[in-house]
């Protein structure tokens, strides 16, 4: 007798598990076949990513609007960001994207052990990214780059920003925190998802015939990478030509 049977009467079980959120079938009833379900899931993920594009796009729009209003000040503000750590992090994320795609590749070839290893490296590189990000945030903190919390107008006047334009510096840095913050949040969610996929892959849940969750996680992970690809020049490289 299963735990389920000891805990609930048959009537309760119907109420609880049949057709509810808790029901667990691999092939859901609305689909004709597993491939049908997988294709739909992948498409769903693409559509979701389109909404994410608009989500981040709004922030890029804001940066662009203030850049239109005052390019010079935005460049000065951008110069204070750490483009070196930014570049390293670009490498890290790109490499993790490769690992993710290799994991899917291995699953397509039914090499679950390989896939498991690649997934672990993917998650590891993700954690590595967050580590660098933390270091960068710490340096920003030391350098008083947190508007509203730790920020010094005088330093910026010394850097040649007009006193009346410090608002733009604050806005740019604020957008920097919001954008990288939301991105880091996405990376964190991605790391969790990749780790779960690693565990499930190790348990042999996925094979050439069915690896839809892995595929969908991959799409999400690559998307996080794409966002970073645009974040990097938009935030870090605006002012480096003045060096």
């Amino acid at each position, binding site marked *: 007798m299963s735990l389920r049977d000891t805990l609930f009467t048959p009537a*309760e079980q*119907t*109420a*609880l598990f*049949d*057709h*509810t*959120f*808790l*029901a667990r079938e691999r092939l*859901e*009833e*609305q*689909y004709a076949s597993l491939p*049908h379900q997988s*294709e*739909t899931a992948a*498409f*769903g993920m693409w*559509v*979701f990513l*389109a*909404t*994410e594009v*608009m*989500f981040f*796009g*709004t*922030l890029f*729009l*804001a940066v662009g*609007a*203030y850049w239109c*209003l005052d390019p010079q000040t935005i460049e000065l503000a951008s110069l204070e960001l750490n483009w070196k750590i930014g570049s390293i992090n670009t490498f890290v994320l790109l490499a993790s994207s490769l690992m993710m795609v290799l994991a899917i590749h291995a699953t397509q070839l039914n090499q679950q052990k390989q896939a498991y290893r690649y997934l672990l490296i993917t998650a590891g590189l993700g954690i590595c990214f967050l580590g660098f990000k933390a270091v960068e945030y710490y340096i920003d903190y030391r350098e008083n780059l947190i*508007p*509203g*919390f730790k920020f010094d107008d005088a330093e910026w006047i010394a850097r040649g920003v007009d006193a009346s*334009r*410090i*608002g*733009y510096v*604050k*806005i740019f840095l*604020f*957008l920097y925190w*919001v954008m990288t913050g939301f991105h880091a949040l996405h990376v964190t969610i991605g790391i969790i998802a990749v780790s779960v996929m690693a565990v499930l892959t190790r348990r042999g849940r996925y094979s050439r015939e069915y690896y839809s969750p892995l595929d969908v996680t991959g799409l999400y992970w690559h998307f996080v990478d794409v966002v970073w690809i645009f974040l990097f020049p938009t935030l870090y490289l605006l002012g480096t030509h003045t060096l």
Partner: protein
Amino acid sequence: MTIATLPPPAPLPAEPPAERSNYLNVSYGVVSWLLTKDHKRIAILYLISVTAMFFLGGAAISIVRLHLITPQGALVSADTYNRLFTMHGVIMVFFFLVPVAPAVLGNFCLPLMIGAKDLAFPRINLLSWYLYVVGGAWTLYAMLTEGVDTGWTFYAPYSSQATHYNVVPTLIGLVLAGFSSLFTGLNFIVTTHWLRAPGLTWFRLPIFVWAMYATSFISLLAVPVLAMALILLMLERLLHIGIFDPALGGDPLLFQHLFWFYSHPAVYIMILPGMGIVSEVIPCFARKALFGYKFVACSSLAIAFLSFLVWAHHMFVAGITLYAALIFSCLSFLVAVPSAIKVFNWTATLYKGSIAFETPMLFCLGFVALFTSGGLTGLFLATLGVDMHVHDTYFVIAHFHFIMVGGMVMAYMGGLHFWWPKMTGRMYSQWWSRLAALIIFVGFFLTFLPQFVVGYNGMPRRYYQYVPEFQVWNVLSSAGASILAVGYLLPLGYLFYSLRYGPRTGDNPWGATGLEWQTSSPPPRDNFAVTPTVYRGPYEYDTGKAQNEP
């Protein structure tokens, strides 16, 4: 082939109804509802919560209308008045109009109409209801404790400076509700693409499905922008870093751009489903195929696209540049074209029909009249020269209430009455429901026609007191509002009554041809015993053949 007076030959329930398994009796208990992933049950959950929200928003505006009977304001203080109209706007827009048609009628009907067993992602569907409920509860908490007085538009810098109000909790609630509608939209798009029954090609889809598809499209691409704008506003308030507040170096017009990038398309999130409902109901009760089906279908997508190009017509006198104003005015006229196409086609559908005036049809004819009036007055607002006078006056209020309340709520009532027998298996009182349709129609005109006049005379919106010469129009409007309130309360009574005492209907009481009518009423848990195969378009009323009849 002949048809008699309605209701058409409905097979009397031969078997005792209790034995027939349907989605309502397949399992019992609160838990089986709160954890359900059945789209039909989730639709009912939405129906209950959305109705509650409607009456809350309605209560707020009833006080406002009563207050405006005298020029000095008869009832409440300025501060309370401001909170009340904000509550009305926020609840009605974000918690009633945006979710009502997709989440209730769309959720219930869309899978049935395309012959699917459920939506593509039923768990996400349930999640979006929970997001709605949590967002709604959070917003209500904010509204009922300290309140918010910014208006539903949350214009910065007022919203980032107003000190003693619950702006941030309200915004959190709205972001949650936004994600709720985003997930619903995601589900509908994916479902429409991947779960259509065999033979159901795109141009055999009912217009309601087209409308839902277009609506979802807008939700998906616009909601994230609103969410981000509101998050930025929240952070600005909390951290005092000016992204929108000019005192801190920000640009208040950026907020308006982002806000209307969502909120103008959101108007079409509200009205497109209404157009879909009407396109179902009119052919059914006129016994005619929808005139110009392809044009009506494509105009839904055209509206979805064009609605994104016109947002700054809300900002003609806000300080945008002349160039931007000219571009947006020109584009604003374009979006009126597909709406006009629809109105002409609905009218043409009636031609040489066999028109029955059942309740859903009455509501939908009312919709066409009110929507046309609203749409035509919209042209005044797209015209730069007139908008610069009537902007932010009661003219605008009247215009968008014609669209949203006159249009959308009428259509929603029409849809609810049309599919009520499908949802519950019971019929409501025809006499009372026709009376309600009539009262709502008359009450609506009486409420909002005077507002056009008082608006052109210059009464600005959001005024808790006004100059005496506007009084006559305000009294008329308030009188109309009280009639309207009766009209909205009536259905609550007779629909509840019908749940228990209404006569059982057959599966297809209206003799409609759509797939959703070809299964039993209420539908079984799996919608169709056998997945139907579709052989024809949705409105072949000349032969009376259902979509799945070979």
